[in-house]
């Protein structure tokens, strides 16, 4: 985390003094972007840096499913399985990918390439079923689309 401190100092300027706990979220996002996940040592160092109790950081981390505590694969496939996507067959497309990759949601392929997750509504109900691969949206998913996509993700 240490090398991010200059950036965190910049964040700090955006908040009035005494609002250190408001910095927890932006700092954690930056840490995850940088390392790929949030390590225990990050929590300890951030608590010291911000002067907030560790529980406050744990609260934020465990509240948002978007935060990861373990390293993940090169490609992170996040399938929405909320109402609209489910009604449009999210479970089927997910099952297809599970079968192709041989892993369940929450798991990573042994070669470290793919990690599979299920998430709640990503605000793209109009194009359900959908998923995110890393930072990009993939919409109106079908088996063929998925097959092509996975080909391209090698």
């Amino acid at each position, binding site marked *: 985390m240490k090398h991010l401190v200059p950036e965190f100092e910049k964040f700090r300027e955006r908040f009035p003094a005494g609002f250190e706990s408001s910095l927890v979220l932006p700092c954690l996002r930056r840490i995850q972007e940088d390392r790929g996940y949030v390590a225990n040592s990050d929590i300890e160092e951030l608590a010291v840096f911000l002067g907030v*109790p*560790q*529980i406050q950081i*744990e*609260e934020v981390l465990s*509240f948002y499913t978007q935060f990861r505590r373990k390293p993940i694969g090169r490609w992170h496939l996040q399938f929405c399985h909320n109402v609209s996507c489910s009604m449009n067959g999210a479970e089927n497309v997910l099952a297809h990918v599970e079968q192709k990759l041989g892993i369940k949601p929450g798991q990573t392929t042994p070669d470290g390439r793919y990690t599979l997750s299920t998430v709640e509504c990503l605000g793209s109900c109009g194009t359900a079923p959908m998923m995110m691969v890393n930072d990009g949206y993939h919409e109106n998913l079908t088996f063929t689309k998925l097959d092509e996509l996975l080909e391209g993700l090698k």
Partner: protein
Amino acid sequence: MPEIFINGQAIEARDDQTVMAVAREHGHFIPYFCWHPQLSVVGNCRMCLVEVEGRGLDIACNMPVAKGMKVFTNSEEVQAHRKAMLQFITLNHPVDCGICDKAGECTLQDYHYQYSGQRSLSHDQKVRSTKFYNLSNRILLDNERCILCLRCTRFTHEVSKSMALGVERRGDTSNIRPVEDRPLSEDPYSDNIIDICPVGALLSRQFLHKSRVWFLQPTPSVCPGCARGCTVQLWHRKPEWKLKALDQRQNESIARVTPLDNPAVNGPWICNKGRDLAQVFERVRADEPMLKGRPVTVPAALDEARRLIGAARHAVALVSNWGSNEELETFKDKLGEVFHCFVKEDWQPQPGERLEDDLLIRADKNPNTTRARELFGHAEPGFKDGTDLVLVWGEGFDFARLPSRARIIFLNSYLQPENGHADVFLPVSIQTERHGHYTNFQGTVSAFEPCFEPKPGVLHAEDLIRALAAPARGHP
């Protein structure tokens, strides 16, 4: 001063008040879980819903007063929503009152009987969670019973400032959890969260499955643990529920200690030391008078003590700062002329104990130093040459410091090696066996009441002092 109406009653409220505060002040009860008079408002339980004419339902604990507002605390609308709220709150609650220590003094149980009485309407499986989670060496957590009112976390953040608790995850999998960097076991006020938990989620290890609360009664008392003198309630078995078989010692023991709300001294809190008073009072007691270690009758011991007092040329008394105001005043009145008196500090801080802080805990670990010093001065105990009699009242004085030629009269409550070394040993009652008052470091006087009878042979110090004084006055 806006005028508001609660259930039709016109009330002058203060600008900074909430509807909850005004209603309480004027005797309109609004049920609540998360609200607590000493904690910040989070408004998360929604049990305190009230109806405001023209505005519908909202929570009273977080509703500022406004001129002319008409509040109804018990309209049909409110009653219906209260019932619905209780359905929500108990959605995943295990309703295991039968094995829950809080049963009988649980707010959830009370409200359920009073406002709902309905079975769960849910067809879904309840969410299971951890039971008997190890929160600290003193407290267990039942996450299934927790209604997430967050009183406990707010207590550790706002009152004790240990920051030891937080909430992990969210929704119906939220769990109260401790953190490793600030362990709850190092919070000397931690047990207050057991009292303020409105349900049976936080459990005292000491009290776990010890007794149903309706078998117990509270006696008002004062914690002697430090000069703050917090007012407490000592809980012990009701006379009508005395055990005749099983472990009869329970009839004579303190089952638990809770704070007795007292704005002048401790508010609604006490420290953990106050919870552990049984460890002080239930040490092995001395119950036989002795002459040089030989058991004798009370009159024989008194006679010998009076003879020593009558014969002494320079007598010193070390007066206990655990004596009540009444006892200390009697001593001053009856024996103050006979003895040269010093105040003795019965207790010193123990290793590992918090010495002092700005919430409650004081460095002086005795209850009545204030009154003792008012009566007997500030001088450290000292023995002039020629001291031929020392009366030691209470524990904590090293007998090796007494002049070797002096005779010793010792008044003590506990079985300790010094008892047998005294020329006259007289067992005296303890705080849980008598009435009295202590004066705390601020000069506030608080009363304690007896819970138990003293054993035969054990005298109240006040009677003993009078008995010792009777002839001493006759033959100066």
